[in-house]
């Protein structure tokens, strides 16, 4: 039943997006495509952090793996697009498995540090093996609009269709995963690792699985974004990207799939909006190009302070009853200590 419900929601959303993509301008279609690509990656990350309680500041690296895999497949093979995307996700998942294995014992800020270094270091592989990876210039990752759509079909609309379809499929799969036993096991580990281990859950395997899932999503998102922007290059996978994914996941609402959508919308639309607003006030020139940057920082702070449970958390409070929401992962950053020493770890009081 859960599956049917999720599918129904997805189909409904898909129809709405289809209608929307036809009505709006080609530029808006491009933005829809960008947002959808990020939704895939952010959804994987929000599952990793929100459900399994592990922090990653490095999912941009997995996006790079998926992006490069997709670009290389597009260049060297003539597989159908769906297969290219699936393969990119699988390759990124493998990278996630390797990293998850290496990092299985890490918790909290140490895991954060490891993922941070991964995000910074992995793209530099492309600079080293320039023959395969194209070096700093990168590789082209463009696709052509299928012939059956006609010659005047805007390419950006086709990109929007592709990415939205991928995003909806991903969201359905993740939603089912959340409701499944794996999802429940993840939440158990997140909330109390020792108790989960005592009740027979294989903690390490679950942690690695979470990394695999989030890396697969990031890889698919990376391949989608590569196709939308038309290039993969190290400069596209800087730390800023990983930070952006994290920001989108938390702002949208950790652990929540609709939150991934809100977060991606903020990530793509707010900086452009702020730049346009600044420009329309007649400010131009080098110093004032920093104004939208400063404003974006303020937006992040304000949204986080006003909506501590993210945008989805706020919406839930306004519109819905207090559903068993994705609980705030209290221990995502704290060091694990044996349960006996810290009975009060579960209590949180606002410090005045």
């Amino acid at each position, binding site marked *: 039943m859960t599956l049917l419900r999720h599918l129904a929601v997805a189909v409904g959303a898909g129809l709405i997006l289809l209608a929307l993509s036809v009505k709006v301008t080609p530029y808006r279609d491009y933005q829809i495509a960008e947002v959808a690509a990020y939704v895939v990656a952010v959804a994987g990350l929000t599952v990793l952090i929100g459900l399994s309680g592990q922090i990653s500041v490095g999912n941009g690296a997995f996006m790079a793996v998926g992006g490069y895999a997709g670009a290389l497949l597009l260049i060297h093979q003539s597989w159908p697009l769906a297969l290219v995307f699936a393969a990119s996700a699988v390759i990124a998942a493998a990278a996630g498995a390797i990293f998850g294995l290496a990092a299985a014992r890490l918790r909290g800020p140490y895991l954060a540090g490891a993922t941070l270094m991964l995000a910074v270091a992995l793209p530099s592989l492309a600079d080293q093996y320039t023959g395969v990876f194209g070096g*700093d210039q*990168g590789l082209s990752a463009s696709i052509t609009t299928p012939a059956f759509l006609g010659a005047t079909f805007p390419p950006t609309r086709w990109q929007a269709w592709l990415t939205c379809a991928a995003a909806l499929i991903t969201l359905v799969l993740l939603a089912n995963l959340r409701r499944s036993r794996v999802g429940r096991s993840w939440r158990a580990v997140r909330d109390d690792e020792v108790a989960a281990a005592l009740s027979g859950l294989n903690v390490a395997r679950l942690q690695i699985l979470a990394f695999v899932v989030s890396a697969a999503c990031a890889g698919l998102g990376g391949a989608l974004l590569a196709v939308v922007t038309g290039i993969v*290059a190290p400069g596209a996978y800087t730390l*800023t990207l990983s930070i952006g994914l994290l920001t989108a996941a938390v702002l949208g609402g950790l652990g929540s799939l609709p939150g991934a959508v809100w977060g991606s919308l903020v990530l793509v639309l707010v900086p452009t909006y702020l730049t346009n607003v600044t420009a329309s006030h007649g400010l131009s020139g080098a110093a004032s*190009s920093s104004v939208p940057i400063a404003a974006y920082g303020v937006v992040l702070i304000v949204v986080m302070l006003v909506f501590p449970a993210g945008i989805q958390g706020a919406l839930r409070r306004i519109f819905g009853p207090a559903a068993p929401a994705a609980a705030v992962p209290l221990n995502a950053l704290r060091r694990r200590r044996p349960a006996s020493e810290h009975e009060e770890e579960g209590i949180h009081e606002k410090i005045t």
Partner: protein
Amino acid sequence: MRRSPKTRLGAVAAVAAVALAAAACGSSGSPSGSKALTASAPGITPSQILIGSHQPLTGVAAPGYDEIAPASNAYFQYVNAHGGIYGRKIVYKYLNDQYDPTDTASVVHQLVLQDNVYAIFNGLGTPTHLAVVKYLNSSKVPDVFVASGCECWNAPGTYPDTFGWQLDYIREGKILGSYIKQHFAGKKIGYFYQDDEFGMDGVKGLNYELPKSQVVASESYNPAVTNVAPQVTALKAAGAQVVVSFSVPAFTALLKLTSLKLSFSPQLVVSDVGSDPITLAGLLQSFAKQGGATVSGNALTQGIITDGYLPSLGDTSNSWIQLFTKLHSKYLPKLPLDGNVAYGLAVGYTFVQAMLKAGRNPSRQDLINAINGGLPQGAAVAPYAYSSSDHNGITGAYMAVVKNGVLVPTGPVQVTDDSPTGAITTETAAQPAAPASGIPSP
């Protein structure tokens, strides 16, 4: 009757004066009865021409490069204040991409799809512009005067609407290599280069000219890591007497400072990209005030050998430099008059040349045809290569040495091509002077 020479001279003078006056009357003033201005292409209205660009205005790649677009814009404002392009004003919308190709794709899609710009002008950066070059060509948007020295813009078959402008890095490497071969024969050479296509293309050009046996070390650096001590130590250990540096100004400065620390003093030969004396002096100026040391910002740049494809800013008798100085003091007083500003002004001038050649009511293809037909030299010291089979820009440069904060040319302009065996020849024609009005003639 014999006329005195003075009378005859007077008659000749009178005739000449009348003839000149007639010619002046004929060409002065706007031709009345000329065609009306129409909206002949996307981005062109009867009153304005809208062009766009992507630039790193913030972020790690911004320092220095964020001066280029305002400088070009300053030149456009000057032209707008003096009649514009056939009466139309140029509106230059340059958006920030923070040197991230994903952002480049976003802003260029916005400029093309939402703002409907006529052309993309001077898009900056190689990995960034590579993200959009296919899209621009498939959308048939003119992509003119890319701000990058990659030879990838010279592909008239694949990218018919894309044109380079600046001296490309392979040509530059050849010119520097040839100079070193002549003046430092037998000396040990070390390379210090950025690990992207800027550095690698430069090294490629150097290797076309320099014999392998002379090169004792080849050290690359990653711009994300500011510690270059390992590289400089390796250069020193190899005994390099001349170090050729394809580096951006920050890393040229770091190379110099680290060499000081390691007591290593090779002859530095630096790419034009990283040798602007004013930028370098600004970076190094704090290290002038050392306890006991007598170095000064300028002293640290003294003697650096480099090349230049625009006239030296120290050559105040050059008509182009006089024009740049005038524009800078009027429109850009807050910026230093350095290499980046000169670059922006010069490439803006080239765009105006091309637009004037494109005609009163140009389509997008008219601009492409105008450049394919070749452009006059403008502020560059060497001719452009523009033709329908060659989309490269400036073809040569002069060698110079940094003395007291300015480039002092040490030889004539050398012109070459991108190929491994293409000869390096001396340019004999002098650089044409800047027009008195500062605006090219149509």
